[in-house]
Every structure is written in C-alpha cells, then in structure tokens.
C-alpha cells in the first residue's frame, strides 16, 4: 500500500508538470490551429538552461527559474517575429513544418553548446521532503508539484480573468472578428509563443531535476500531445486532470507492470494505450470543447 501511494503521489507531481507543458502546447494549438512539434524541445532546452544556471553558475533555484523564464520569453518573441509571423494566413501545414524546423534548430543548438551529454543536477535543489505517515516524497517531485501548480494557476487566472486573456480566447475562436474589433492579432500570437516557450522551459527545469537532462527529454513533447488529446485538444482546464492521470498511470505501470516483463519499458507506452481507449469513447477528449450545436 505504501508503495502504491508513493507511486501515486510522485505520479501526481510528474503529471502536474506534464499538464504545464501541455498547456503551452494547447495554447499554440488553439491560437494557430497548428501542432507545435518543438514544444518538447523547449522542455529540453529548459533542462540544459537549468543545469547551466544551477551548476555552472551556481545560482539558487528561484534565480534559475527567473533567468530561464526571461530567456524563454525573449526566445518566444524572437521565434514568433522571425519564423511564424510571415506564415500568418498561409496553410497550417507550413506552420507545422516551421515548428519541425524550430525543433531541429533547438536540438542543434543544444548539441553545439552542451554537447548533448547527460547532465544532472540531482540534489542541488533545496531539500523539501514531505513525510506523511509512511510515505515520504523526495524534494524534486515536491518542488516540481509546487512550481508547476503555481504556474498553472497563474496561467488559468490570466487566461480567464484578464483583458489580454480575453483577447487570446477570442483570437482562438475567430481571427477576423478579433481583427475587426481592433485587437492586434500579432500581439496575441507573440504572447502565445512566449507562454508556450516559458512553460516549456519551466517544465524542463523541473523534469531535469527529477530525471536528469539529455536530448531525448524532447520526447516530453509527445507526452504533452497525449495529455492534450486526453484532456481535449482545445481545453486548457482539461490538461490538468489529463496530465495528472497520465503521470499517475505512467508511474503505476513503471512500478507494477514493468517488473513483469523481461525488459520492462511498458511505462512509456501505457499512457498512450489509455489515451487511445479514452478517445474511442470520447473523441473530444475528457474535457474538450465540443462544437456548439443548436437544435
């Protein structure tokens, strides 16, 4: 039982980080109607940046998070301005191709700067171990949970209760209407890339602390995609429970199913199987916005 609870709790923390990354993915999907293939690469870059600031520069965690977010925000603005703004009004496939190009560029940059090696900053984070009766949660997942939950909360409040959030939601529904109301769509796009990049690197720092940083960390992008599909591709709120479900399932299958197989490895596949089954019965995902149909 202790083992089970332990898995669930760490899975919950992991899932919250997935949800955070998935929200970045969904915001791009809602506003530009395009899959952002580079979302996972933002995560990977975040992990390496986290390593650089924490280990190489020896900065505390909060300063690392702030610096990385600042770099990501700048990166988001630059990416939107140079790579994606010229594609407004072009077919969606060209935007997707551009995100593939971005992912290659980021991967190349990371290899160039950090050599693509395995880096880890385990144990550098402040100790924040929580022990409830027999379950003790190590500090990395605890910090991951706290930071990502805060970030998700801030994002949700921003998206639903601020004027800029209103503009983002409106742009997601109808670009022409928004333009005819004088809202600058380019500002909204720019902001959506900033958010996607920032939540990506934030997820990267947190995940890097848990599992170490390597170029395959970019595969988290695929997991964000799963979370988005499970929660409903256009539902930001849906990403939170979906992320948690995926995180817990992944941990449980790693704990219980992997030992049964000679080589293991079911943990990374299991969430996808669950996603497929859910999509058969709920094609819009668990919390997806349906197209409004009047009778």
């Amino acid at each position, binding site marked *: 039982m202790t083992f089970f609870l332990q898995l669930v709790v760490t899975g919950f923390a992991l899932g919250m980080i997935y949800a955070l990354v998935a929200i970045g993915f969904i915001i791009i999907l809602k506003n530009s109607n395009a899959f952002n293939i580079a979302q996972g690469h933002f995560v990977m870059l975040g992990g390496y940046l986290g390593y650089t600031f924490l280990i190489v520069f020896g900065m505390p965690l909060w300063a690392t998070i702030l610096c990385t977010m600042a770099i990501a925000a700048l990166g988001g603005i630059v990416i939107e301005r140079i790579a994606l703004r010229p594609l407004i009004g072009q077919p969606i496939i060209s935007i997707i191709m551009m995100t593939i190009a971005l992912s290659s560029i980021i991967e190349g940059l990371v290899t160039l700067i950090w050599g693509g090696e395995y880096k880890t900053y385990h144990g550098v984070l402040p100790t924040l171990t929580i022990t409830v009766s027999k379950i003790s949660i190590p500090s990395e997942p605890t910090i991951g949970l706290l930071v990502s939950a805060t970030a998700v909360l801030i994002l949700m409040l921003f998206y639903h209760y601020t004027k800029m959030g209103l503009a983002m*939601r409106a742009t997601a529904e109808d670009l022409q209407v928004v333009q005819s109301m004088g809202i600058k769509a380019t500002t909204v796009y720019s902001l959506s890339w900033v958010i996607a990049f920032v939540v990506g690197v934030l997820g990267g720092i947190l995940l890097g602390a848990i599992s170490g940083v390597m170029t395959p960390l970019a595969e988290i992008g695929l997991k964000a995609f799963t979370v988005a599909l499970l929660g409903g591709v256009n539902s930001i709120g849906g990403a939170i429970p979906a992320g948690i479900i995926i995180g817990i399932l992944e941990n449980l299958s790693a704990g219980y199913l992997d030992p049964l197989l000679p080589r293991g490895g079911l943990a990374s596949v299991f969430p996808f199987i669950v996603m497929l089954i859910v999509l058969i019965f709920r094609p819009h995902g668990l919390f997806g916005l349906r197209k409004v149909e009047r009778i």
Partner: protein
Amino acid sequence: MLKVENINVVYMKVIQVLKGISFDLEQGQIVTLLGPNGAGKTTTLKAISGMLRTEDGEITGGSIHFNGKRIDSLIPEEISLLGISQVMEGRRILEHMTVEENLLVGAYRRKDKSEIKEDMEKIYTWFPRLKDMRKRVSGYLSGGEQQMLVIGRALMAKPRLMLLDEPSLGLAPLLVKEIYEIIKKINRETSMSILLVEQNAKAALEVADYGYVLENGRIVFGGPASFLKDNDIVKEFYMGISSSGERKSFRETKAYRRKKRWFF
C-alpha cells in the same frame, strides 16, 4: 465621411472582383449596397475594413478616404481604431464565450471603464433579449439573438461607421423587421453612419437614405432610397413585383434579364 473612389479589387492576383466602385457616405447616413450573389457587395465592405488582406485579396487601384484620411493601405486593426466596425456576414459570434464576454471583446481597445459599463447597459436596452442571456454561452443563442449580439459587439467599439453585412440572413421575416427597427433607432440616437449590404432589398431600402445596385463588380444603378423603392427595375429584380404591382413569375424575370442593359 467615407469616400470610396474608383477601387479595383483582385483576389489571389487573378480574379478581379471589383471594377471601379465609387460612392460617398455622409455622417449619420445609412447607405445600402444591393445586388445579386457574387456582385462584390461583401468585397466592397472588406476593402473598406481592410479584411481583404486575410483573404489574399488586394486593392489594385483607386482610393478610400475616411474623414479625410486615406485608409486603403492600412491593416484591419488600424482601420478599426479609426472608428470603423465591421459586422461580418453569417453571425460570427465567439461561440464558446458568454454574451457578456462577446460584448467585452468589442470594447477591447477602449480605456474608459465606466463608459464601457454604461454602453453595455445601453446595448441591453436596445436588445433587451440579450440582457437575460448575458451569462449564457453565446453559441446556444437563437439566430436572431446571435445577430443582435454581433451588432451589439460592433457597437461596443463605439464606431463612427458600421459596416453591416446581411443582418437578415436566414432569419424569420418578423425578426428581420425587429432588427431593422433597432438599427434605425440606433442610427437616429447615435448619428452613427451605417453601410449596409443586403439581399433583402425591401427591408434595406426601408431604413436606408441612399442605395446602390452592384452587378459584376460595378455600380449599375444608384440614388436616394425613396427613388429606388419606386423604381421599376429594382422592384422587378429585387422585390419580385412587376410594374403593374402584381407578383411576377421567375420565368418572365429571367427572360427580361437577358436583354437588360442599364448601365448609367
């Protein structure tokens, strides 16, 4: 106030849709553009609001002035800031947002918070039906309510000129009447100008001061609304009434169409 001079519009660099459209619109006037499908009515509105750019269209000649400022090279966001608000065809509500949020999107570029509140109340008095539904998700409103909502949303931007594209589309005759009465009322109370595109010539000429008939990208006919209303050709083509006052069959109209020639 609005001066459209000899504009040509080309889509995708090959399809010429407007071939030299010119007309004027004065402060407080309602001007209507009539004509069959594909005549270029909506394109004219999009040329004014700048919305052509998002559809791969381009103004290749002529000029558009609004209050003395040339606007044909501006982007839609800038044009909207000058006080031109477009209500697009087909009730383009933001369907997952509530009625109130839709209205707030209209007021997005305004800074005067207290006045926005007042204006919202004003819109609720013009469209009392919206008031009861303000917390509802707008996608579930009825067609007429959605049309009221998009007009209300455009009004929230406090425009000096509203471009109104087919407000009667797909609505029951009584509802069309109700909406046109409100439009007329708003025009009287706020002295906002309206450029109205409409297939329903009868309803449009009822409220308009001036009317122009477009065909194949040209203005073929125009004048004060009272003149157009009594004009035989307009009556026959757009209202289905022959000069003797009785309804005419579609077959006869078609035969007449073939030999018509009525450019200015």
